């Protein structure tokens, strides 16, 4: 958004200037490096990802630096956040035995949430997770963790064998094995990553379209109506995105918890 809105403002691209609508696209997700170190370019999404990590670290550090038995101030918020993840995400999937995974799930949820919510903060206004390169490392962490836990708790052969529920006739096994293997090793992690990326990418694109259109159509004529309509939609998408940013972090973390649960607990 920053890119296009900035370009629009500086170029004065407007319907009355005779320039066509500068439709947002992939170019809005490509950033020129802020600075370079050799051939490595440090871009705005990288800066935002580091900022997101710092926000999470500083928040929880401030909350639990000197924990009190009766929580006050930011410790209240920190405890609320942790208990929320424990009761809404961890316990429903893993039960009490899964409490050791709480630090992972809390970090994962808040890191993703803050990266997503960057989209809605003025000046920052870019969701880091709309660049898929920032999503894959998170997916790989989860993927290797549940593979490791599965092999550790069920053994390599048991883990593979348990992918197909017992009681299936053996000819069916032959038909199902390729489907199960592809589902488990390729499409499960793929959908985990692409869903987060796709939602944030699409949301940012929609916000950009309606924000640019509001400016592009703005005039003291009938165009004002179109601009107002576009502005209303931009506000609507903004409100929707406040929900989506949270929901996507929630879904990613919940699925992580269920995948860990599936690895830890052998088949019935």
């Amino acid at each position, binding site marked *: 958004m920053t890119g296009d809105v900035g370009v629009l403002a500086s170029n004065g691209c407007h319907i009355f200037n005779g320039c066509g609508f500068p439709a947002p696209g992939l170019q809005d997700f490509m950033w020129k490096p802020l600075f370079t170190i050799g051939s490595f370019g440090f871009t705005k999404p990288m800066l935002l990802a580091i900022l997101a990590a710092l926000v999470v670290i500083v928040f929880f550090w401030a909350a639990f630096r000197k924990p009190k038995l009766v929580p006050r101030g930011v410790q209240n918020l920190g405890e609320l956040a942790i208990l929320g993840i424990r009761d809404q995400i961890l316990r429903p999937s893993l039960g009490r035995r899964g409490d050791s995974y709480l630090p992972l799930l809390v970090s994962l949820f808040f890191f993703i949430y803050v990266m997503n919510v960057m989209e809605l903060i003025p000046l920052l206004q870019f969701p880091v997770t709309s660049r898929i390169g920032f999503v894959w490392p998170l997916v790989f962490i989860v993927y290797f963790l549940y593979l490791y836990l599965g092999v550790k708790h069920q053994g390599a052969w048991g883990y593979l064998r348990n992918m197909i529920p017992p009681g299936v006739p053996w000819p069916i096994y032959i038909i199902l094995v390729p489907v199960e293997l*592809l589902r488990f090793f390729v499409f499960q992690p793929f959908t985990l990553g692409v869903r987060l990326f796709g939602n944030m990418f699409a949301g940012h694109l929609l916000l950009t379209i309606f924000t640019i259109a509001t400016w592009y159509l703005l005039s003291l004529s009938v165009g004002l109506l179109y601009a107002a309509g576009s502005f209303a939609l931009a506000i609507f998408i903004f409100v929707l995105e406040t929900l989506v940013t949270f929901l996507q972090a929630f879904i990613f973390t919940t699925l992580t918890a*269920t995948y860990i649960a599936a690895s830890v607990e052998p088949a019935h």
Partner: protein
Amino acid sequence: MSEHGDDAVTRARKQAAAQGRAQGLEVGWTVFSYLLAGMAAYGGVGWLIGRAVHIPLLFPVGMLVGMAISLAYIIHRYGRQGSPGGVRGDGSPRDRREITGDR
């Protein structure tokens, strides 16, 4: 019911709702992954055979067969979830993994 009892009931309800949400998410995305995996697996087999015997039509046919296999498997594996409230015949609650057949 006492205030303490009400709290316990509310907590249990919230827990059940969270459990249902997690289960729904897992099943939903697993089903979606099955659909993709079935099409990719048998579409791939169809494509390979099609290349060998020079019949390109085997690729889309393989994808359709894969989708049919996935759908049949999804119905077999998750179709039983419709049992009222996920309870056994004796009224005791069924475990999530028992319902989904998952690991």
